[in-house]
C-alpha cells in the first residue's frame, strides 16, 4: 500500500519538476550574451592565464583560492567601495563561491536556486529554482556552494541528490541524473569539479548513516563513468576496519570540492566523519576511509593512496577541507589544515606525512604513532554525561576555504577556538533519520569562544601571524597578488588584511554573518572582490 502510493507521489513530483522547468524557462530565461566562449578543459588547466575569470570553485585546480589580480592592493585597499549587491531574498546560509567567465557571473544559492548575472552591474541574465521535494534531508542548512563550468554548461549537485547540467546561456536544464535516493539522508551541497570532460561530485549525509561516495559523470550526457565508495565493500582493502555491518551505514561523505594535479593526473578528495558521528561503540576499527585524504585517478576512480587524518573518529572531525596543492622548491606537497586542529603537510606523490602541527587548541590527541600521525586519546571519547574536548564539534576549521598565496608562500586558514562537551548514547539506525548517537554542546566554562585568521608557513608548520575574530566565523579566505587576504566574520564584516603583516586595511559591514569564501574577478579592466553574506552577494572595487 505504502509503496503504491509512494510511486504515485514520486511520479507527481517528476511531473511537477517538468512543469516547473517549462514554466521557469518561459517566464525567466532571457538570452545570455552571445559572445560567451566555450570553457574548454584547456582553459581550466590554464586558469592562471586568465586571472580576470574565476573558472573553478577554488579559482584553480590546486585549491589555492588565489587571484593574480593586483589592481586592488595593499596601498589602495582602504579605498574599496561596494560596487553592486545581488539579493537572493532567500533565508538560511548563503555559501556560494560564484564563477566568472568573460563578464558573466554564475552563482548558486539556498534551496538550490541559481543565477547568472552581468558581472559588471549585478543584473540578472537568468535565474533558476529547482522544485525540491518537501522531504529533502540536508544536515546543516539547505545550502549549495556553487557551480562547475565546462563547455557551454554549468553543473550543480542538488539537495535531492541529483546532478544537473544547465545551459550556461539560458539556465535551461540540459540533463538531470539521480545519483542516489535522497530519502535515506543523501544530498549534494558542494560545487562539482570538472576534469577532462567529466564532472566529479561527492555526497553529503554523514549525519544520517549513509555510505559515502565520489562520482564522475560525463559532462555531455550525464552518464555516470565511475563511483568510488568511500567505505570499502566486502573483499576490498580496508573493509576490515569496520565492525560487523557498520560499514553499510558508516557515513564517510565527501562534501567539499576536491583538487587536481594534472602533472600526475591525480584528483584529491577529502572525506567526512564516520557515522554515527559521536559514538564509536559498534564500529570498532579505524573506519576507513572516513576523515581521509584520497588520491584518485580521475579517469577510473581508482585509489592511488590515502591518508587518514582522524582514526576511529568520535568527534565529528570531517576532513572536508579543500586539500591544497603546493610546490615548495622541488618538493611536491599537499597541505590540509584539518578540522581536527592539526595542519598536515604530506608528500603529494606518496601520501607520506611530512609534518602535523597543531594550529588551534587540541585535546583529543596527545600522542603520535610511529609515522608521526596524531592518534586519539582514550580519555577523549564521548561519555554518557559528556566529556570536554577541543576542538569542538564544528572543528578548528570547517568547510570554508583556506588560501595559499604563492607570493608570501603562506597558507591562511580560518581557525575556530571552541571546545565542546561530547556525550554519547546508544541509538538504533533508522533510514533517513538523524544518526548521531550523541549530543554535543558548548563548554560554558570555556566561553567565550573566539576565532582567528591564521597565517601558517607550510615549510615549518609555524604560525606567522593571526587576526583575532571576536567569535568563531564560517568565512573562508582569499589571497591576491595585491598583497592582500580577504575574509569575513560572524559579526558581518568583510575585511581586507595585509598578507604579510595581518594588519586590517579595510572593512565593510555586510549586515549578516559570513558563511562563504571570497573570490575575485575583473570586467572591463576593473577588479572586483565578491563575498556572499546574509541573502546577498556583495561586490567591491576601487571607486
Amino acid at each position: 500500500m505504502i509503496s503504491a502510493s509512494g510511486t504515485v507521489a514520486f511520479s507527481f513530483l517528476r511531473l511537477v519538476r517538468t512543469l516547473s522547468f517549462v514554466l521557469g524557462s518561459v517566464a525567466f530565461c532571457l538570452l545570455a550574451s552571445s559572445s560567451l566562449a566555450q570553457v574548454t578543459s584547456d582553459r581550466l588547466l590554464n586558469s592562471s592565464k586568465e586571472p580576470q575569470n574565476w573558472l573553478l570553485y577554488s579559482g584553480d585546480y590546486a585549491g589555492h583560492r588565489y587571484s593574480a589580480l593586483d589592481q586592488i592592493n595593499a596601498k589602495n585597499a582602504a579605498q574599496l567601495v561596494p560596487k553592486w549587491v545581488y539579493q537572493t531574498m532567500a533565508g538560511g546560509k548563503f555559501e556560494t563561491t560564484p564563477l566568472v567567465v568573460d563578464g558573466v557571473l554564475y552563482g548558486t544559492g539556498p534551496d538550490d536556486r541559481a543565477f547568472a548575472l552581468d558581472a559588471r552591474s549585478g543584473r540578472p541574465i537568468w535565474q533558476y529554482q529547482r522544485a525540491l521535494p518537501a522531504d529533502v534531508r540536508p544536515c546543516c542548512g539547505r545550502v549549495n556552494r556553487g557551480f562547475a563550468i565546462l563547455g557551454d554548461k554549468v553543473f550543480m549537485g542538488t539537495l535531492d541528490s541529483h546532478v544537473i547540467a544547465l545551459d550556461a546561456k539560458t539556465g535551461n536544464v540540459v540533463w538531470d541524473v539521480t545519483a542516489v535516493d535522497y530519502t535515506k539522508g543523501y544530498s549534494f551541497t558542494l560545487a562539482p569539479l570538472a576534469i577532462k570532460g567529466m564532472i566529479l561530485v561527492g555526497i553529503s549525509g554523514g549525519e544520517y548513516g549513509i555510505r559515502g561516495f565520489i562520482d564522475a559523470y560525463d559532462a555531455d550526457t550525464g552518464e555516470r563513468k565511475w563511483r568510488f565508495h568511500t567505505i570499502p565493500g566486502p573483499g576490498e582493502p580496508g573493509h576490515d576496519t569496520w565492525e560487523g555491518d557498520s560499514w553499510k551505514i558508516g557515513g564517510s561523505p565527501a562534501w567539499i570540492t576536491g583538487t587536481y594535479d594534472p602533472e600526475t593526473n591525480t584528483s584529491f578528495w577529502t572525506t567526512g566523519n564516520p557515522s554515527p558521528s559521536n559514538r564509536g561503540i559498534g564500529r570498532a576499527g579505524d573506519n576507513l576511509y572516513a576523515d581521509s585524504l584520497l588520491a584518485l585517478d580521475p579517469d577510473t576512480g581508482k585509489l592511488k593512496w590515502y591518508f587518514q587524518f582522524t582514526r576511529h573518529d568520535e568527534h565529528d572531525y570531517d576532513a572536508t577541507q579543500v586539500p591544497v596543492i603546493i610546490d615548495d622548491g622541488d618538493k611536491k606537497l599537499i597541505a590540509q589544515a584539518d578540522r581536527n586542529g592539526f595542519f598536515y603537510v604530506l608528500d603529494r606523490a606518496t601520501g607520506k606525512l611530512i609534518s602535523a602541527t597543531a594550529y588551534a587548541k587540541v585535546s583529543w590527541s596527545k600522542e603520535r604513532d610511529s609515522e608521526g600521525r596524531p592518534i586519539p586519546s582514550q580519555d577523549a571519547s564521548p561519555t554518557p554525561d559528556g566529556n570536554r574536548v577541543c576542538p569542538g564539534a564544528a572543528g578548528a576549521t570547517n568547510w570554508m576555504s583556506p588560501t595559499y598565496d604563492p607570493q608570501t608562500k603562506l597558507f591562511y586558514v580560518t581557525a575556530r577556538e571552541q571546545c565542546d562537551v561530547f556525550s554519547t548514547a546508544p541509538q538504533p539506525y533508522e533510514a533517513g533519520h538523524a544518526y548521531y548517537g550523541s549530543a554535543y554542546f558548548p563548554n560554558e566554562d570555556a566561553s567565550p569562544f573566539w576565532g582567528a585568521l591564521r597565517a601558517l608557513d607550510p615549510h615549518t608548520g609555524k604560525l606567522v601571524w593571526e587576526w583575532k575574530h571576536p567569535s568563531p566565523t564560517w568565512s573562508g579566505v582569499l589571497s591576491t597578488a595585491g598583497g592582500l587576504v580577504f575574509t569575513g566574520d560572524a559579526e558581518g564584516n568583510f575585511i581586507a588584511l595585509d598578507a604579510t603583516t595581518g594588519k586590517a586595511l579595510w572593512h565593510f559591514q555586510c549586515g549578516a554573518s559570513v558563511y562563504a569564501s571570497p573570490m575575485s574577478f575583473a570586467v572591463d579592466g576593473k577588479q572586483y572582490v565578491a563575498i556572499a553574506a546574509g541573502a546577498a552577494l556583495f561586490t567591491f572595487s576601487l571607486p
Partner: protein
Amino acid sequence: MCTAIPAHRTLLYLACFLGFLCFPDFPLLGQTRNPYAGDAKVVKLGEYEFRANCAFCHGLGARGGGRGPDLTRTPKKHGDADADLFRTINEGVPGTAMPPNGATQQGVGMTEAEIWQVVTYIRSVEKKPSAATGNPARGRELFYGSAACGTCHMVNGKGGRLGPDLTAAASGRSSKYLIESVRNPNRRLAQGISEAMKEFSQEYETADVVTSDGVKLRGVILNEDSFTVQMLDTREQLHSLDKASLKSFRKSRESLMPAYDEKTLPEKDLDDILAFLGSVNSSGGAR
C-alpha cells in the same frame, strides 16, 4: 526567488499536500495536538532527535545549557500547548537565539513527525512547577527597594536597562541558574543580543574605555565587532565607538552586577525576589 516564481511554489505546495494524502500515517502540519502524546516508544525517538538538534543549546535531558532555557520547566515562555511547542520548534523565536527548524549549523532539521517526537520527549521530562516558597509581594518591594535590583534590571518596562531585562527570566531559566546569577554573577555572564545568523549571542561584558579626548567610560557592552563597540555607560548613556580611535579599551568578564552574598541578601529575601520574578506575567504585570 520563491516569490518570483509563484507557479513553482503552488505546485510544490500541491505536491506536499498530495504527499501527505498518500501517507495517511504522517501527521499533518496543521495538526494542533500531539499525535504521539504519552507514547513511551516515541519518547525515546524524540530523545534521539533532541540530542541531535536541541541539546547543543538546551543541554542533556533538556535541563538547560549555556544558551537555551531549561525545558523541564512549565509553563513554556512561548506558549505551552502542543501546537505552541511545535510552532516554536518549527519556526523558531524571532529576535532570540532560537532558530527555525533546520536553519542552523547545529542539528539536521526535522520532519513534522520528528518534531512531534521531540514534543513528546519534552513532555516526558517536564516537572511540575514547584510551589514558590517566597512572598512575591515582598519580593517586588525588595526588587525595587533595598535590594536595588531595579536600578539596573527591568521587569515589564519598569526599572533600569544596564543589566538584562528580567521580565521573562523565571520562565526561561532554572532557579539554580537565577540563584547563581545573583550569588556569583561572574560565573556565567548573561547573554545579550542575538543576531539572526550569528552563532553566539553577545554577553554582558564590562568595558573600561578612554576616548580620544581622554573621557573615561565604564559600562556594559551591548554589541561589538572587530572595529566598533556599542556600549551603555553606568548612567545608561549609549556610546558608539570606533575601537581604532580609543586611547584605551579594556574588556572584562567581571560583571558590573555585584555579587550578593547572604549578608547583603539573606536567603529569605532572595526567595521572595525569585517568587516575584516567578509571578511575572510576561504579557504584562505580575499575576
